[in-house]
């Protein structure tokens, strides 16, 4: 795949999957409608024609069984990449993920590893209401034994998968549905990414905006607005939701002394709380102002467009929160 030509996030995900299938015969894809249908978000389109039904495996509507089957296959040395269409459906497989995938290595005293990758589409904004639009990745970030990734930029969409497959532990990759169509060029010089560190996506000195997934896009937009007001915002892309890269977060806050955390998930008990608490524990004396969050409103996602927009954090909300810290009324 020519890196310099513009690609979409969707295409970057597809190239990553194709690479994985080409480079390791133990890798296979498994999920609902990833084959003949081409993937509910068209990410896997064409792969079944190239790799066949065995390695691009359409499953029945049996989330618990096929995710559990992915765990079993990983236990015997395969490198399954399982797809769950939407994070709400992943609740049907949660028993397998939490009670088996996350426990077996420890429970067995290290006799078995579970080198499994699960790709899950997440997030709101597509007007698909209260059973298809939530952001539960922060929830998964609570579970010991799992690594949780949230690619927000093309480079991560393209290269996080390979790093996830190299990890001997279960890795969940959350792809935000609003990102699939973003387009850009991949730097041909870059051929891989780490899955350990957060990244500063924009340097700034007045306030740190900490975000991930689609929230990053919104934080970057807010930073642009703030620049117009003469406020220099630093934007951190968490990238890895578990384990959290506290070092990068604290370094930024130590510099800016102010922090707004952006999370599309429901505010109470969201990942933003953990990030804020770590700052309050370890960076307390660096702060010149209270911590702030801009999160999803605590409602099942409504269908009506104006209500869904009101339920999700928007760039203007982020900019306003930052302004409030830098220039308190």
């Amino acid at each position: 795949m020519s890196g310099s030509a513009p690609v979409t996030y969707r295409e970057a995900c597809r190239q990553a999957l194709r690479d994985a299938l080409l480079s390791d015969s133990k890798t296979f894809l498994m999920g609902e409608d990833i084959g003949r249908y081409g993937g509910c978000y068209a990410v896997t389109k064409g792969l079944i024609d190239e790799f066949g039904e065995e390695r691009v495996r359409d499953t029945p509507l049996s989330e618990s069984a096929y995710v559990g089957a992915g765990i079993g296959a990983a236990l015997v040395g395969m490198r399954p990449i399982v797809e769950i269409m939407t994070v709400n459906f992943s609740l049907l497989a949660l028993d397998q993920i939490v009670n088996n995938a996350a426990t077996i290595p420890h429970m067995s005293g290290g006799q078995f590893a579970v080198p499994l990758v699960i790709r899950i589409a997440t997030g709101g904004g597509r007007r698909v209401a209260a059973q298809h639009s939530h952001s539960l990745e922060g929830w998964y970030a609570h579970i010991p034994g799992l690594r949780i990734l949230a690619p927000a930029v093309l480079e991560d969409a393209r290269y996080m998968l390979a790093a996830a497959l190299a990890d001997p532990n279960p890795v969940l990759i959350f792809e935000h549905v609003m990102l699939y169509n973003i387009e850009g060029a991949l730097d041909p010089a870059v051929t891989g990414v780490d899955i350990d560190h957060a990244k500063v996506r924009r340097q700034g000195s007045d306030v740190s905006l900490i975000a991930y997934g689609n929230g990053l896009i919104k934080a970057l937009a807010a930073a642009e607005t703030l620049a117009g007001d003469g406020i220099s915002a630093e934007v951190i892309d968490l990238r890895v939701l578990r384990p959290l890269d506290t070092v990068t977060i604290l370094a930024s806050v130590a510099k800016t002394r102010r922090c707004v955390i952006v999370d599309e998930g429901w505010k109470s008990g969201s990942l933003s709380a953990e990030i804020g608490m770590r700052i309050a524990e370890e960076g307390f004396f660096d702060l010149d102002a209270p911590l702030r969050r801009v999160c999803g409103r605590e409602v099942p996602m409504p269908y009506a467009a104006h209500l869904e927009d009101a339920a999700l954090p928007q760039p203007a909300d982020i900019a306003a929160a930052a302004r409030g810290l830098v220039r308190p009324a």
Partner: protein
Amino acid sequence: MSARVHLDHDHVRHLLRQMIRIRHFESKCVELYQAQKILGFLHLYDGEEAVSVGVMEALSPEDAVVATYREHGQAIARGIGMDVLMAEMLGKQEGCCRGRGGSMHIFDRESRFYGGNAIVGGGLPLAVGIALGDKMEGRPAVTTCFFGDGAVDEGEFHESMNLASLWKLPVLFVCENNLYAMGMALARAEAETDLARKAAAYRMPGVAVDGMDVVAVEGAARNAVEQVRAGGGPQFLECRTYRFRAHSMFDAQLYRAKDEVETWRKKGPIGRFQDWLMKNGLIREEEVHRIEADADAEIEKAVAFAESGTLEPVEELEKFVTMNQVPA
């Protein structure tokens, strides 16, 4: 066709009208979707109208219905007004769910229509509980639960079928077998493709019927409902049908051949019933035209109602996240 259905003039015209109302309503939805007035997912019932029209004929007002995300037909056949339905699809507060549910989440308290569920198989446990509650309270109601062939793959199907049968609950399980779950052909998803047989694993009577034949569906549903109401426990009714259009508006239909769709279209429930009625002198062409005209007029009124509807103030966003009381 079944002898249990009285094919008098009024009734056959009613059946035809119901199917036409659904078909025309959904054609309008497609227009509105293309005009981006309806957003999100839109799952059409085109080709499956005979199923809910036939089944609903067997139900009484006190019965309960649990629907799927492909439920416009189920909702209209159950008697929910096109106006509040269309307003819901347009996200207006005049909609049956104040615009919060949309196409996949139609609810209507008055007709005991317990939703529009967009988790495949997610409605089955609810149906079991609704029937349990009605039974414990001595209400004579039957709960009819619609779901697709894909839902049969889910564990919730297995658990719910067993619970309903074990506890002899008044549930009619209606499987709308349209041979596909999104792009997944039944034969690629189920080791046993004869779904009616699955009922045997729960000692539940299971019957398969031609879901393209509205009278056959009504007859089978009347038989089943009668037995459920008599206290014989749940029944399983498989309606063999087909989806003429894409799964949703995002579907390129790579998984099936055009001529497969064409062959099925010839068996279409509306055309077939209409021809049969005319051949047997049970309806005249003008009547059909009138029915179509009436349906279109009704739909125009519904669209006007929806278009002139208002948006719920964003200040009310959190209303009903928790209820202040149980609605009487």
